[in-house]
């Protein structure tokens, strides 16, 4: 009885994908483009996000190739500047910010709380169209020559000194921002108003808590970056002078506005990923998440503190020493809830019954890499060491550990975990475990040397660099090729599994969430009967009882 897997699939000779499900109910391109079903919109997002991810990834590949040698030999410095700018813009605004919320969040929030759809289904579709409009504008910008301001659009460089497509890129980000705001709004309303009977706040899966916290950030922070972009546009077109020191403006003001969004944006990106990790670790250790309330409130704490740390991006920019003191202290405080989460996940394993399917491997990868990413954040939050480490490859390594090592691992973990629910079919387990390993190894090879490069002082956004930095850059580029393989593999086998994967059945992981108590792929209205939540979240004993009853009913009906 004690095998090392929890996967329980239906008998493959008799099992069929349910005839009526959200994919099969309607056909044709228009049925997708005009859908208001949250699950179909999630699929639209998944396809478009992956597309943008691979464009951003290709740009990253170009960056790493250029940095293989100290000289600029693959491309001119201007081209290099455009490449890293577009890499940043696409990855941040068109992949990381919407990644988990728009795909998994969209698909799962209504199902997890026992609702038929999001509160505002048409607004949800509008979000996707806004996202696509922004994304296509960004691609158009790339096609007509790109932009070279860096994804941070720092003034006065972006307002007075570059002649590239700042306005169209700004517009792309502006439009995509509304997609984010509407998604956040939709989630908040849904979580407040659409919960099934018995689904109290403290019975919500932690995935929901994390999305709720992230949604608050989306709604409150995104308008500020919209304002900052509008001001840049006005400065460029009519020269209003808000950021222009010769007109009495303050060039630093832009950075305050920009980071007032872009720092919380980091938590918009990571919080939903943390939600995924909570679900995955609980399921594969058959245990309720250790300290449920602590994890739930730490998400909220991160969201609240996340608003008050933006100036830690500006410690060396001549803001007052006392402002630095306050922001450094607040930065230390925001690090604590993340530490709490890591330890709670670790102790969820304690006395569990652990198996190591792919989502769990990715989750372990997340925990290790996010711990490194988080700790190195403290190096930068401490004002003294920030002086030396900021604006170098140390920062590049730090945020890639958090965003790629953390967020992307969580995204892949979640995609594998809910793949059977989304498609009704299993992915190939061995191959995907290999992909998880390759990703982990490639990631460390790529980004760990960058911590050393940064400590040595290598500045970020350099197309050429002194020759003594070459060896570490060679390592990094070599690692990036491994990482590339790690990301291509899932695309191949996940597409393969759409046709050839094993039939998953309702609940292959024997997970407790409401989304697993219905057919896979689900009906358009999610549940045949409106679910009633009569147990706590992650109640594995309830699940066992449930399965027991089901077996008995089957036995009696057969007999």
């Amino acid at each position, binding site marked *: 009885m004690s095998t090392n897997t929890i996967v329980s699939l239906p008998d493959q000779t008799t099992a069929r994908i349910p005839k009526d499900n959200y994919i099969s109910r309607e056909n044709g391109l228009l049925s997708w483009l005009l859908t208001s079903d949250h699950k179909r919109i999630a699929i639209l997002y998944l396809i478009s996000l992956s597309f943008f991810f691979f464009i951003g990834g290709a740009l990253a590949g170009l960056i790493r190739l250029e940095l293989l040698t100290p000289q600029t030999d693959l491309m001119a410095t201007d081209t290099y500047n455009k490449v890293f700018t577009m890499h940043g813009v696409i990855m941040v605004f068109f992949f990381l910010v919407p990644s988990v919320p728009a795909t998994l969040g969209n698909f799962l929030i209504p199902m997890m709380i026992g609702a038929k759809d999001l509160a505002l289904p048409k607004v949800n579709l509008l979000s996707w169209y806004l996202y696509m409009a922004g994304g296509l504008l960004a691609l158009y910008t790339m096609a007509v020559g790109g932009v070279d301001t860096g994804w941070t659009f*720092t003034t006065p460089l972006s307002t007075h*000194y570059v002649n590239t497509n700042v306005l169209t890129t700004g517009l792309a980000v502006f439009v995509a921002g509304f997609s984010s705001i509407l998604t956040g709004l939709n989630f908040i309303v849904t979580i407040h108003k659409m919960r099934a009977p018995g689904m109290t706040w403290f019975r919500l899966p932690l995935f929901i808590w994390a999305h709720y916290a992230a949604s608050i950030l989306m709604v409150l922070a995104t308008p500020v970056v919209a304002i900052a972009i509008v001001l840049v546009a006005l400065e460029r077109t009519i020269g209003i002078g808000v950021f222009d020191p010769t007109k009495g403006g303050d060039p630093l003001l832009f950075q305050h506005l920009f980071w007032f969004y872009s720092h919380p944006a980091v938590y918009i990106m990571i919080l939903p990923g943390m939600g995924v990790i909570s679900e995955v670790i609980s399921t594969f250790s058959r245990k309720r998440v250790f300290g449920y309330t602590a994890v739930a409130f730490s998400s909220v704490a991160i969201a609240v503190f996340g608003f008050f740390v933006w100036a830690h991006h500006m410690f060396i920019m001549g803001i007052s020493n006392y402002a630095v003191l306050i922001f450094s202290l607040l930065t230390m405080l925001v690090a604590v809830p993340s530490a709490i989460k890591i330890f709670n996940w670790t102790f969820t394993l304690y006395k569990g*019954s652990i198996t190591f399917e792919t989502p769990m491997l990715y989750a*372990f990868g997340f925990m290790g890499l996010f711990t490194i990413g988080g700790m190195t954040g403290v190096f930068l939050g401490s004002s003294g060491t920030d002086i030396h480490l900021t604006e170098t490859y140390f920062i590049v390594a730090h945020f890639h550990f958090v965003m790629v090592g953390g967020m992307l691992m969580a995204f892949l973990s979640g995609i594998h975990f809910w793949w059977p629910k989304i498609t009704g079919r299993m992915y190939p387990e061995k191959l995907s475990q290999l992909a998880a390993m390759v990703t982990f190894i490639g990631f460390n090879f790529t980004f760990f040397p960058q911590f050393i490069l940064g400590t040595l002082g290598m500045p*970020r956004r350099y197309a050429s660099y002194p020759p003594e930095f070459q060896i570490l850059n060679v390592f990094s580029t070599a690692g990036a090729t491994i990482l590339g393989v790690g990301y291509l593999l899932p695309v191949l086998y996940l597409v393969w599994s759409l046709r050839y994967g094993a039939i998953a059945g309702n609940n292959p992981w024997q997970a407790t969430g409401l989304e697993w108590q219905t057919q896979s792929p689900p009906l358009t209205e999610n549940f045949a009967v409106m679910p009633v939540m009569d147990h706590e979240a992650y109640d594995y004993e309830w699940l066992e009882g449930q399965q027991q009853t089901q077996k008995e009913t089957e036995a009696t009906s057969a007999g």
Partner: protein
Amino acid sequence: MNHISPVIWQFLVKWLTNFALFPPEASKIAPQMDALYFFMVLVSLIGLTVVVLLVVSFSILYNKKRHPVAVQVEGSTLLEATWTIIPLGLFLVMFVWGALIYFRVFTPPANAMNIYIVGKQWMWKTEHPGGQHEINALHVPSGRAVQLTLISQDVFHSFSIPAFRVKREAIPGRYTTVWFEATTPGTFHLFCTQYCGTNHSQMIGDIVVLTPEDYRKWLASSTSGASLAQNGERLFASLSCAACHNARPDARGPSLANVYGAKLALSTGGTITADDAYLRESILNPSQHVTQGYAPIMPTYQGQISEEGVIALIEYIKNLNSDYRIQQTLNTTDLPPESEGKVPAAKGPASQGTVKP
């Protein structure tokens, strides 16, 4: 090995001889910052080891084969408190330690010598008080506190010296300062670390630390003939500043003798300290803070003086300690007093020319 693969041989040799893992410590603050850095590395390693050890040992002890049925554990207030308080305590130590270093880096000692740095796309211009100019290089003596006053004439730049663990943003329209005391003679990297456009990665240079004796020799051999203050004096004359700031009883502008560092009463009430930033503002945007007793009649010199020119003027004003000196300036020029009404723009190019390196 050389016979097997020259490429690998080359790679290994390069590796062994030209491969750094840690930057040199060439300033007084560097070892202090590194102590904190290594403390944080240590804490991170311990933290990571704890997490990894726990995950690995739980994975071994409680994998499904060995431990087929999970035991539900709700949580533990004691454990929660432990991993809230210990990280918080450690982070607070790092905060205090970091803040102490931060304040040290940005609080120059009173006896520091001052060097001006002007950043522009894509070069660093260095203005020594003795009138020495450098491009993409900075010569400093070892064993002496050196303060840098930085400004940018276009976009944000950042003046970074990794070997000193010191970095400061050069901001358009605003002076920022940082100081260091170099300890080891040698040549070190200077980088611009704030992305500033096309040739950002070429905005690099050398920091040359000389022994005090070599530094004196370098100063003597690199002089341009006039000190920064003398350049400022020439500019002061050619812009007809002395037409108003002439310290006569009927002068339309305040006397500038001993004005540097003084607390000035403003016409709007309140006081302001006449530091570099105030002097710069008073030249480029004179009506912003007018001294008490004077009308806001001074024209702006925005766009007519380069950043180096402003620096030279400030350096001149810093060294002005008597009204007599101003009148000397007045007398040494052949400008008639009537020229005060002239638009200074007419002299724009001439005024710029006086401070070109």
